[in-house]
């Protein structure tokens, strides 16, 4: 069925000039989007080169020449720096994508990918694995402890993140109401956080692992992790892009989106599942890297406001660039020591949000 064909506004409709101005405005908007994508692409390439060059001496031309002259370059760059660089890009991309989805689903620019219990779930799982051997036979059954050890930290973090989101959905009785979902996420975060605290009290060995996990690190990313992250992004990005118009419709309000023929509870559930997949993959490999998922979509919205079809992809790229930049900085600022990358992202991301808040640009 077509919309009404005859009604025309009685008041003077803007003529050729208005339409031409509208076309110009549309062209300018598209140009900004393309420029941002190109800028992010160039930044990703440049930072990748820096990531390959940055070694234990930080960003040093002479150290790089020495690495190359020693004949260890293939092993050093191919086995250590290349997967770390690519891995940082991919973890950042998954977090940026998850952040854009979260902010779209919850219609809230302060929504974070860790909002629904994934961070607390992953953190608890990591602590549980570390504490398992110490507590075997006391607080937990030996068989459970052996199973947890076999699972490993990465597997546990992944399952913990998914479990945290699953528990949130269970407490919220599905994804029917946004507010209920958000509140359940807060409750799960607090409860699982308290459980993790209890485990660290019972097994102090787990404290250090928990701290390292919460600060985030890209140092241990190898080629298997890169393959897994790439597979996850290759799966999640097209699915997210296919959902872009649903997220666009949600910007009109829940009633308006529902009136457009969308079964919102089902869509919300699907988008939360996608968000959980991206977040779980990222935190399992790199820990709780702060602020990337929150800041990347903001940055894109500020530099090139657009519909979700663009925002989702550009946020993924921006997230990758942000984390890679933070990783290069973390390796270089106090070389030969290395800062946890989560501290760098927290400082950069928090500073950016404060600056944005000061300028009234948080939207």
């Amino acid at each position, binding site marked *: 069925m*077509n919309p009404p064909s005859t009604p025309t506004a009685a008041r003077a*409709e803007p003529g050729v000039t*208005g339409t031409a101005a*509208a076309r*110009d405005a549309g062209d300018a*908007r598209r140009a900004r989007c393309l420029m941002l994508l190109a800028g992010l692409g160039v930044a990703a390439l440049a930072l990748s080169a820096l990531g390959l060059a940055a070694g234990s001496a930080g960003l040093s031309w002479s150290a790089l020449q020495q690495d190359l002259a020693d004949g260890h370059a293939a092993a050093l760059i191919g086995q250590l720096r290349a997967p770390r660089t690519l891995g940082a890009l991919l973890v950042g991309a998954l977090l940026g994508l998850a952040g854009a989805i979260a902010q779209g689903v919850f219609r809230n620019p302060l929504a974070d990918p860790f909002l629904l219990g994934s961070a607390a779930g992953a953190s608890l799982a990591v602590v549980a694995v570390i504490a398992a051997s110490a507590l075997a036979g006391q607080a937990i059954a030996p068989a459970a402890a052996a199973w947890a050890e076999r699972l490993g930290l990465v597997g546990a973090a992944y399952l913990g993140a998914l479990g945290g989101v699953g528990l949130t959905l269970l407490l919220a009785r599905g994804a029917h109401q946004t507010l209920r979902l958000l509140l359940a996420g807060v409750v799960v975060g607090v409860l699982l956080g308290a459980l993790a605290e209890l485990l660290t009290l019972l097994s102090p060995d787990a404290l250090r692992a928990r701290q390292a996990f919460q600060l985030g690190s890209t140092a241990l990313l190898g080629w298997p992790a890169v393959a897994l992250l790439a597979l996850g992004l290759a799966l999640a990005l097209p699915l997210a892009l296919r959902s872009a118009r649903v997220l666009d419709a949600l*910007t009109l309000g829940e009633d*308006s989106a529902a009136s457009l023929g969308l079964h919102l509870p089902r869509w919300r559930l699907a988008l939360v599942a996608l968000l959980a997949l991206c977040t779980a993959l990222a935190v399992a490999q790199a820990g709780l890297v702060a602020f990337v998922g929150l800041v990347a979509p903001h940055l894109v919205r500020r530099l090139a406001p657009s519909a979700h079809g663009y925002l989702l992809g550009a946020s993924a790229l921006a997230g990758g660039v942000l984390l890679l930049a933070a990783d290069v900085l973390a390796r270089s600022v106090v070389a030969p020591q290395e800062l946890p990358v989560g501290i760098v992202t927290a400082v950069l991301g928090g500073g950016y949000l404060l600056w944005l808040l000061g300028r009234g640009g948080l939207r």
Partner: protein
Amino acid sequence: MNPGPAHHLEARDLHAGYGARRVLHGVSARFGRGWAAIVGANGTGKTTLLRALAGLLPPSAGEVRLDGVALAQMSARARGLRIAWLAQLGEVSGELTVRETVALGRLPQLGPFGSPGPADDAAVAAALQAAGCAGWAERPLLELSGGERQRALLARALATGAPVLLLDEPTAHLDPPQQVTLVRLLRRLAATHTVVTVMHDLPLALAADRVLLLDAGGLRADAPAADPALHAAIAACFGGAVHIGWRDGRAAVEPVL
């Protein structure tokens, strides 16, 4: 223009509310081709009735039927193809342009994964033209004034091509010339559509073919706009704060100061 078949929306003994709070108490009404305006004091259930008619709020008792089929038995998409909804302002967020917003009106036809074709582009252009916002189609929705935004959202509702239009406060935020433009548009649409609006502005509401007066969640009157008994009921409902006369085929609403 061929008006096409008439579509009938019917509320049968409708009860609805929010949690334990009951708002509507047994409202029954039938809407066919033409323009019906729902009026009443604040908090009497006007928006609740409209949301229930749109299938956005499940009734606690009673039912809503569209062309004889219960809305509860229709899929979300089937409802979206037949009923267009315009919400009150204030819910909009994001960075969409006016054109992108209006194009969302084609979602019921396309589904979330469909690609728009020339017919969809034409429908969007016609809706932009009809609502008088083609001149700023590429501007971000949130950068518009309240009145301009309202017109863009009305264009989004028109772009659905649905035969039933449910509009909550469509004249809010519009300046007087734009209110007149919108009323004329609604009158033209009423020739081919089932149009139901919630309105606070009594003179504009009385430009409709028919007016429903809600009072404390119940239907107090349902009559043609020119009916003197309706005018008396409205005046009584508003505590005598208005006086409604009818001169030269038009309502004359005066506040009693």
